[in-house]
C-alpha cells in the first residue's frame, strides 16, 4: 500500500449474478477507504450497494478484481482463512441485530473475542463491560438479549462489532429497522466512534439524513460509483 492511511482498497471489482439471468451488479468498481473515515454507501434499491458491502466485507468471494484490507491481499484466501480474518479485523452491524437470543448481552459481545482467543476470558469480559458502559448498557449486561428492546439489541450488536478492535466496522442499514429516537442513538454512537476513537466505519444506508452526516458519501447507481 502506497498510502499507509488507506485501510481498505478495492480495485476493478466486477460482480455478476447468474440467477435468474446473468446480470452485472457491480461494474468495475474501485474504492479506497482511509483510516478513520466514516463512509456511507447510498443508492437506490437494486443499485448494488449491499452487494458491494458484502464484497468489501470478505463474506462474498464470488467476484472479479482485487481486494486489500490493511495491506493484505484477500483474493485466494480460503473461506476458513477469511473467517479468521473477519473475526480479527472486521466488525458487523446488520439491519436486524442478529444477536444470539439465548445468550446474555455480555456473552453476545464477548463471542467474537472468545473465538479470537487472544486474551483471557477475564480480560475479554472487562473489555466487553467497558464497551457496554460506553454505550450506556452496562446495567443490562447480564440480561438475555431476547428480553431487550429493539434499540437496546442494536446497541448490543454495535458493542459486539467493536470487541476485537476491528480495522473496519461494516454496517448494513444499521438503523433500517429502528424508530427515529433509536436511529439517532445508534447514529450518535457511530459518530462518536469515528470522531473520538478514529474508528473506520463503512455503512450502507438509504437514509439520506443519516448519510448526510457522514464524512464521505459514495453513491451507487446501476453498479457504478457516481
Amino acid at each position, binding site marked *: 500500500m502506497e498510502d499507509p492511511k488507506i485501510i481498505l482498497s478495492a480495485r476493478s471489482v466486477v460482480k455478476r449474478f447468474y440467477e435468474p439471468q446473468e446480470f452485472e451488479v457491480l461494474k468495475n468498481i474501485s474504492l479506497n477507504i482511509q483510516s478513520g473515515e466514516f463512509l456511507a454507501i447510498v443508492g437506490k434499491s437494486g443499485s448494488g450497494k449491499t452487494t458491494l458491502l458484502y464484497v468489501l466485507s470478505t463474506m462474498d468471494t464470488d467476484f472479479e478484481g482485487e481486494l486489500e484490507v490493511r495491506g493484505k491481499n484477500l483474493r485466494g484466501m480460503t473461506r476458513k482463512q477469511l473467517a479468521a480474518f473477519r473475526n480479527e479485523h472486521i466488525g458487523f452491524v446488520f439491519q436486524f441485530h*442478529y444477536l444470539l437470543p439465548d445468550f446474555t448481552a455480555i456473552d453476545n459481545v464477548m463471542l467474537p473475542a*472468545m*473465538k479470537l482467543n487472544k486474551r483471557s476470558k477475564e480480560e475479554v469480559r472487562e473489555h466487553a463491560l467497558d464497551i457496554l458502559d460506553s454505550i450506556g448498557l452496562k446495567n443490562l449486561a447480564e440480561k438475555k438479549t431476547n428480553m431487550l428492546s429493539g434499540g437496546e439489541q442494536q446497541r448490543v450488536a454495535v458493542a459486539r462489532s467493536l470487541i476485537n478492535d476491528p480495522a473496519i466496522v461494516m454496517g448494513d442499514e444499521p438503523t433500517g429497522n429502528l424508530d427515529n429516537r433509536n436511529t439517532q442513538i445508534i447514529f450518535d454512537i457511530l459518530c462518536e466512534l469515528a470522531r473520538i476513537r478514529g474508528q473506520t466505519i463503512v455503512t450502507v444506508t438509504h437514509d439520506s439524513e443519516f448519510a448526510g452526516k457522514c464524512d464521505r458519501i459514495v453513491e451507487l447507481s446501476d453498479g457504478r460509483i457516481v
Partner: protein
Amino acid sequence: MKSTNTKIAFVYLTSRVKQSVVAMLSVVFGVSMYVFMNSFMTGVNDIQTTLAFSTLAHVRVHNETPMEEVSLLSGAKEDIIAHVRNKKNLQFTTGIRHSSETIKVLEGFSNVEAVAPEVNLTVSYRSGATKINGALAGVDPDMEDAVFDTSHYMVTGRWEDLRHRPDGIIVGKTLAENLGVTMGGDVHVATTEGVTRTFNVVGIIKFAVRSIDGRKAFANINIGRQMGAHNADYVTDLQVRIADFSSAPAVASKLAAFIPYTVEPWQEASGQLEAGSQLRNVIALAVSLAILIVAGFGIYNIMNMTVSEKIREIAILNAMGFDSGDMVIIFLMQSVVIGLFGGIVGTTLGFIISWIVDNSAFPVATLETYPIAYEVSNYVMAFVSGLITTFIAGVLPARKASRVDPVEILRGT
C-alpha cells in the same frame, strides 16, 4: 475457542429443552430395547443350551459300526461269471469293552471336567397290559450327575437311590404316566435279546423334552451290563462334559487322536441347537438395530430442524469469524451429548425392563420366569451402537450448518 463452541452448543441444547428431551427419549428407547432384546435372546439361548445339555453331552465317545458294506461283486467284470456262496456277515464288536482305560485317558485332559459311562439299551417297558418301547440307560449315578446335573430334574424320589438299589429304576414322567406306574410301583423291562427283569420305581424324572420323558428310564450301570450280557467294564457310550461347550469340536478332534473310538462333539449330534441360537441372535440384532435406526432418523429430523431454525444465527456466527469447522463442532456436539445421555439413561432403563421381565412368571416346561441374561457386552454394544447412530444422524445436519452461505441468508431479509 473450543470452550466457546461447547458453550454455544450447550446453550442451544438447553434453550430447547423439549426438543432435546424428545431427541434423547428416542435414543433412550432405542438403546433400552437393544439391551432388553439382546439380554432376552441371550437368556433364551442360555436356557435352551442348559436344557439341551441336560440330555446331550458336550462330547460323546462311542464305538460306531462301520458304515461301508463291502460288496463282493464289486470286483467282477461284465464278461466274468461271479459265484458267491454262503456269504457271511461278520458281527462287529459294539460298545467299548474296556472303558476304564479310555476314561483315564479322557480325564487326563485339562479341558475335560467330567466323564460319565453309560450302557444304553433298547428295551420295552411293560406294566399291566401296557407295553411301551423305549430306552434304558444304565448309569453310574454320581458320574452321570457330574456331567448332566441329572439330579436337578427329579420330580419325586432321589437320584442317589440308584447307587444302592440294584432293582431301582427312575422313569421319565410321561413314560410313567403312560405306563400307569407311580413311586414304588413295578415295571417289567425286556431287552431286544429277550432278557426280562422287574424293577421298582424309585423316582420320576422330567427334562421337559417329550422324546426323552416319554421313553427313557435310568437304572444302575451294572444292571444294564447284566441285562445286555456284557462284561463288567463294558459301556456303550462315554459322555464327556468340557469346560467351554462352544469349543467342543476343537476338543473332540484333540481327543480323537488318543482314543480308538468315535469322538463326536454335540454340534454334530444336534446341529439345530447351534442354528437356533445363531438365528435368534440374528433376529435380536436385526430388531434392535432397526429400532436404533428409527431413533437415528428422529435425531436427524430434530437436528435438521434446529439448523433451519438457527440458520440466521449460523450466518451471523460465520460473519463474526466462526468457520465451517466450528459449525460442525457446535451442531455435532449437540447430537453427541444427546447420544451420551440417551445411552446412559437407555442402558439403565434396559436393565430395569430386563429385571422386571426376569421376575415375571413364565411357568412353562422347567422354567419359572422369563430367561434373561445379564451380560456386560450387551450393554456396551447397546451404548456404542446408540452413540454411533446419533453421531451419524448428527453429521448431516452439522454439515448443512457448515455450508450455510451467510451472504445469501443475511441478504434475504
